[in-house]
C-alpha cells in the first residue's frame, strides 16, 4: 500500500555549501589505516539495497540528529564507509564549537556537590511560604525571596535539560551523541526523584555516559553503578544489610553494649538512636532488580527473585554521602555492606568480602549471554527497525560476546550490515519528540538560546528531558509515539516554527534559504524538501506543498481556523517550512 518514494530534489542540495564538520584529527595521532583493529569487520558495501543517495540520507537520519545544510555533501565527499568509521571514533573528530559552548556552562564544569552547595534547593523557604497559604497571599518581599532562591536550582535544571539539546545541536560527534541519548534512556534517571537529583545530571551525562558510550559495556555499567545520579534514583545509596545479616564492619552501638548503647557501653542520645534507626534501614532491592531486568539481562533473561536479592546484597554499601546534605562522590561503606556469602546467577561469592562483591556481580551480569542479546537487540532496534531481523541481532550479540562487550564493535556490526542498508529499514523509524525538534533545529541552523523553551517544546511533544518517571526509559518504537495527541503536537510544532515562535530559529533565514527567498514556488518547495526531508517525498506531498490542492481532501469536511486563535496567515517560504515539519514524512527517520 505504501507508495513509492521519489527523490525529488537531490539537485537542490548541490547549491548548499559544505558544512563545518571538519574531519581533521585533533586529539589522537593519525589512525592506523593498515591493520584492521578487532572491531573493524569488513563493510558489506556490495550487498546494499539502498541507492547511494539513500545511503547518505539514511546515515544522516540514523547516526545523527538530522542533516544540517551541507552534511549530505560532506558524507558523499568522504564516502559512506569512511564516514561511518570516523563517527565510530569520536576522539578523532574535532568538536571545538561544542566544547567552547559547554565551557561556558557551570554545571558541566563544576562538581555536583559544589553545585548543590552553591544553589541549594529552597526546601525550607518553600515550606515556610507554603504555610502562609496560597500564592496570592505572599508579600512582595516573599515573592522576591522566592524568585531569588529558586533562580539557582532553576539554572541547574536549564543547563541539564537544554544541555542535552545543545550538544545534539552543535556536536560534530553525532554518533556519539546518538549513543549518549541511547544510553541515557537505557540507564534512565528522573529529575524529580527528589531535590538532589537535578544536581547530578550534567555530570552524569558528561562524565558517566558520554565518555563510555562507545566503549566497553562493563566500564559503562560500573560508571553508572557508582554514579550518584543512579545511586539516588534507584535508592541503592541507602540499601544496606538486613538486620539478620552480618555487616562487614559492625555499626557503633550494635556491638557488646547492645542496642541503645554506644560502642563504649554508654547510652545513646535520642539523636544518635534516630540516626542508628535510619542506618539500620535494610536491604533495598530497587537497583538490584533494575540492574538485571533493565540494564543487563532483560526481563526474560533468566534470573530469579533470589538473584535479585543477592545482587542487591552484593551491592550494599555502594553509596555516596547523604544526598540531602550535599552528597559527594561514590564511596563504599563497609558498615552498610552485607558480608554474608551469596550466590548470584550460579556464581558463588564468598563471605567476608567488601566492594569486590559488587564488582564481581558487574562482571557476571555484563558477561551473561542474555546481556549480549538484550543489548544487541536494543541497539538494532534503535538503528535499524522497530522489529530488527533476528539474524542481525544474533550477529551483533556474537560481536558483543567475542569482544567482551565492546560497544563500538557491536554498533559497527549493526550499522554496516546489509539489514541496516536494506530497503525495509529506509525511513522506517518514527522520530522521538527529541529527534523531531532537534532535527528541525539542525536543518534550519538554529543556535542554543540558553533558555528552557526548547526543552519545554520537547516536553509538550511528550518527552520531557530526564522526565521519565519509571526506570524503563522512553519508548524506542514508533507505535508508542504515535497517537492523536502526539501528532497534533508535532503538527503544531511545525506551525510554531513557521510563525517564528520557536526561539533561536527562523523559518526564512537559514543556510540555504538565501537563494530561495524570491525563487519560484517549485524551487522553494524542492529546497525545503531537500533541507528538511532528505529530498524524498511522494508526488502527492510535493503537489500539496506547491499548490495546496489534494483530491483526497475534497471528501473531508474543511477544518476552519478557530476565530479566537486567528493570527496573521503564514505565507511563502515560512509556510512551506512549517508544512514540511508538520508533514508525515518529517516524522520519520
Amino acid at each position, binding site marked *: 500500500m505504501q507508495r513509492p518514494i521519489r527523490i525529488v530534489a537531490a539537485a537542490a542540495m548541490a547549491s548548499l555549501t559544505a558544512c563545518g564538520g571538519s574531519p581533521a584529527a585533533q586529539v589522537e595521532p593519525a589512525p592506523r589505516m593498515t591493520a584492521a583493529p578487532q572491531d573493524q569487520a569488513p563493510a558489506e558495501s556490495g550487498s546494499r539495497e539502498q541507492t547511494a543517495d539513500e545511503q547518505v540520507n539514511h546515515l544522516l537520519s540514523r547516526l545523527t540528529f538530522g542533516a544540517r545544510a551541507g552534511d549530505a555533501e560532506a558524507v558523499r565527499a568522504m564516502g559512506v564507509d569512511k564516514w561511518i568509521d570516523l563517527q565510530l571514533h569520536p576522539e578523532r573528530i574535532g568538536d571545538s564549537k561544542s566544547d567552547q559552548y559547554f565551557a561556558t556552562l557551570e554545571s558541566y564544569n563544576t562538581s555536583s556537590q559544589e553545585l548543590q552547595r552553591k544553589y541549594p534547593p529552597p526546601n525550607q523557604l518553600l515550606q515556610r511560604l507554603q504555610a502562609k497559604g496560597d500564592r496570592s497571599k505572599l508579600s512582595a518581599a516573599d515573592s522576591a525571596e522566592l524568585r531569588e532562591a529558586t533562580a539557582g536550582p532553576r539554572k541547574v535544571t536549564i543547563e541539564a535539560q537544554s544541555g542535552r539539546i545543545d550538544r545534539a545541536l552543535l556536536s560534530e560527534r553525532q554518533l556519539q551523541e546518538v549513543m549518549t541519548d541511547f544510553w541515557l534512556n537505557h540507564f534512565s534517571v528522573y529529575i524529580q526523584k527528589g531535590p538532589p537529583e537535578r544536581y547530578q545530571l550534567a555530570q552524569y551525562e558528561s562524565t558517566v555516559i558520554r565518555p563510555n558510550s562507545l566503549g566497553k559495556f562493563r566500564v559503562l555499567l560500573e560508571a553508572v553503578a557508582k554514579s550518584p545520579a543512579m545511586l539516588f534514583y534507584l535508592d541503592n545509596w541507602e540499601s544496606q544489610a538486613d538486620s539478620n545479616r552480618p555487616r562487614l564492619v559492625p555499626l557503633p552501638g550494635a556491638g557488646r553494649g547492645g542496642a541503645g548503647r554506644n560502642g563504649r557501653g554508654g547510652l545513646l542520645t535520642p539523636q544518635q538512636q534516630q540516626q542508628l534507626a535510619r542506618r539500620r534501614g535494610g536491604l533495598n532491592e530497587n537497583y538490584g532488580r533494575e540492574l538485571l531486568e533493565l540494564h543487563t539481562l532483560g526481563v526474560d533473561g533468566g534470573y530469579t527473585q533470589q538473584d535479585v536479592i543477592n545482587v542487591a546484597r552484593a551491592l550494599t554499601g555502594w553509596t555516596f554521602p547523604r544526598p540531602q546534605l550535599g552528597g559527594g562522590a561514590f564511596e563504599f561503606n563497609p558498615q552498610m555492606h552485607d558480608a554474608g556469602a551469596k550466590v548470584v546467577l550460579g556464581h558463588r561469592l564468598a563471605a567476608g568480602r567488601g566492594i569486590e562483591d559488587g564488582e564481581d556481580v558487574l562482571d557476571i551480569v555484563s558477561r551473561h549471554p542474555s546481556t549480549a542479546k538484550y543489548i544487541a537487540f536494543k541497539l538494532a532496534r534503535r538503528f535499524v527497525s522497530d522489529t530488527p531481523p533476528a539474524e542481525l541481532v544474533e550477529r551483533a550479540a556474537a560481536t558483543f560476546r567475542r569482544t567482551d562487550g565492546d560497544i563500538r564493535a557491536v554498533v559497527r556490526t549493526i550499522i554496516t550490515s546489509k539489514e541496516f542498508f536494506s530497503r525495509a529499514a529506509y525511513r522506517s523509524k518514527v522520530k522521538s519528540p527529541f529527534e523531531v525538534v532537534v532535527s528541525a533545529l539542525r536543518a534550519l541552523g538554529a543556535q542554543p538560546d540558553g533558555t528552557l523553551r526548547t526543552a519545554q517544546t520537547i516536553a509538550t511533544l511528550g518527552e520531557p528531558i530526564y522526565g521519565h518517571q519509571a526506570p524503563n526509559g522512553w519508548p524506542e518504537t514508533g507505535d508508542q509515539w504515535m497517537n492523536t495527541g502526539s501528532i497534533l503536537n508535532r503538527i503544531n510544532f511545525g506551525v510554531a516554527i513557521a510563525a517564528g515562535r520557536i526561539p533561536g530559529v527562523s523559518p526564512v533565514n537559514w543556510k540555504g534559504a538565501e537563494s530561495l527567498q524570491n525563487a519560484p514556488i517549485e524551487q522553494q518547495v524542492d529546497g525545503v524538501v531537500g533541507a528538511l526531508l532528505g529530498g524524498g517525498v511522494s508526488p502527492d506531498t510535493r503537489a500539496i506543498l506547491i499548490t495546496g490542492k489534494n483530491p483526497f481532501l475534497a471528501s473531508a469536511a474543511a477544518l476552519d481556523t478557530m476565530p479566537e486563535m486567528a493570527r496573521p496567515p503564514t505565507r511563502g517560504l515560512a509556510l512551506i517550512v512549517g508544512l514540511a515539519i508538520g508533514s*508525515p514524512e518529517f516524522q520519520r527517520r
Partner: protein
Amino acid sequence: MRRRYFVKSGAVALVTMGLSPSFLRRTAMGMDLPLAQKGKVLICLFQRGAADALNVVVPHGERAYYQLRPNIAIPQPLRGTGAVGSTGATGAIDLDGFFGLHPSLAPLKPLWDSGLLAPIHAVGSPSATRSHFDAQDYMESGTPDAKGTSDGWLNRYLATSGTCEQCAPTPFRAVAMTPQTPRILEGTAPAVAMNSLDEFAVRSGGGDQTARLEALYRTGSADLIHGTGQEMFEAVKMLRSANPTQYQPQNGTDYPKSQFGQRLKQIAQLIKSKVGLEIAFADVGGWDTHVNQGGATGQLAQRLDDFAKSIAALANDLGEGMENVVILTMSEFGRMARQNGNGGTDHGHAGAMFVIGGSVHGKKVYGKWPGLEPEQLYEGRDLALTTDFRSVFSEIASKHLGATNLGAMFPGFTSAARLGLLA
C-alpha cells in the same frame, strides 16, 4: 448526529481504505475482548503530594485522634448541627457519629445526604514506601513494589477490554486533562492528554495552512503516521462540533476558577458532547503539608475548599448523568497520625478515597477502621492499611465499567473481599 458524522466520514472511511489508526487497530485486534458497559464513565482524580486523610475524613469519635493532633485536629461536630456552612465552620461535619468531613468539604455533604458519596478510610498501597515518587508510581501502575511495570492500570483496562457494542470507536475514549500522559494512562492503548479542550486544535493562523496540513495526511498512504494524523483531524473536528467555547454548565453550576475546577468543567463538556469518553483523569497538587497545615481553617482547608467545590460542581452539572458516572479520588499515601513540630504532618501510610456516583451505595464510610492507639498504628506512627487500593480499583472496573480482565489489570492480585461499593 455528531457521532454518526464521525463514523461515516472518519473511522469507517479509514477502515474501508485499509487504514489503521491506533484506536481502531486496538479495537480491530481485540474483537474478542470483553466489552465495556455502554455510556459508563470513570473519572479518576489524583491528589498529588499525599493528602492528610485523617483531617479529610475525620475520626472525631476517636480519642487518640485528638491526643495525637493537639493543634491541628478538626474539632468534633458542633452539637445539634448536621450541615455546617463552609465559612465560619469550626467543627467536622458529622457523617455517622464516628467519622466526619472536614468543614471545607461542606459542598460534598449534599452528595452524602442523597446517597451518592462513599468515603473509604484506611485504604492505599500495601507498599511501605514513604516516597511520593514511588508511591505515586505504584498507585498509577497498580503494582505496588514492582517498579518494572511500564504501563498504568487504567491503560491496561483500555488495552484489554473493547468499547461497548453500540459505541463507535473514538479517539476520546481516554482523556487526561494534564500536559503529559500521566503514568496511570501510559501504555499500548491510545489516550489523549491535553491542557484544555481549546488547545486541542491546529494552532495555525489564517489562510489555508490547516487545510494543507490535513491534505498532507490524506495522500492515500496507509501507514501508521498517516492513519493517526487523519484520526487526529477527525478528532479535532469532532471536538469542534461540540463547540467548547459556547459551553454552558447546567443546573446553575458555577465551577471554581481554579485550574482544577476548570479541568473538571471540561471533563463534563466531554461527557455531554458524547464523544465516547469512558476514562477521564485530572490531578491537583498542594497536599504535601509538612508545615502549618492548619485545622478547620488554614492551608489544608483552602486546598479542600477548591477540591470540594470543583467536584460538587461537576456532580451538579452532570445532574442525572451521574447515574452513569463514577468519580474516584486518590492520593499516594496518608500522613503521620501525630502532628510534627511545625504544625504539619509528615509522610504516612494509609489514606482515604472518595467514590461518588449514581450507582454508588453511598451514605456509608467504607473500610475497616484500624484505630489510632499506639499499638494500632503502622510502624508505631501511621494510620494502618486495611483496604488495598487494588480492591477499590478492581471493584469499580468490574462493577461500573464491566471489566472482566482483572488478572491482567492487577497481575498477581486477588481481592480479599468485596467492599460492596456499587450497585
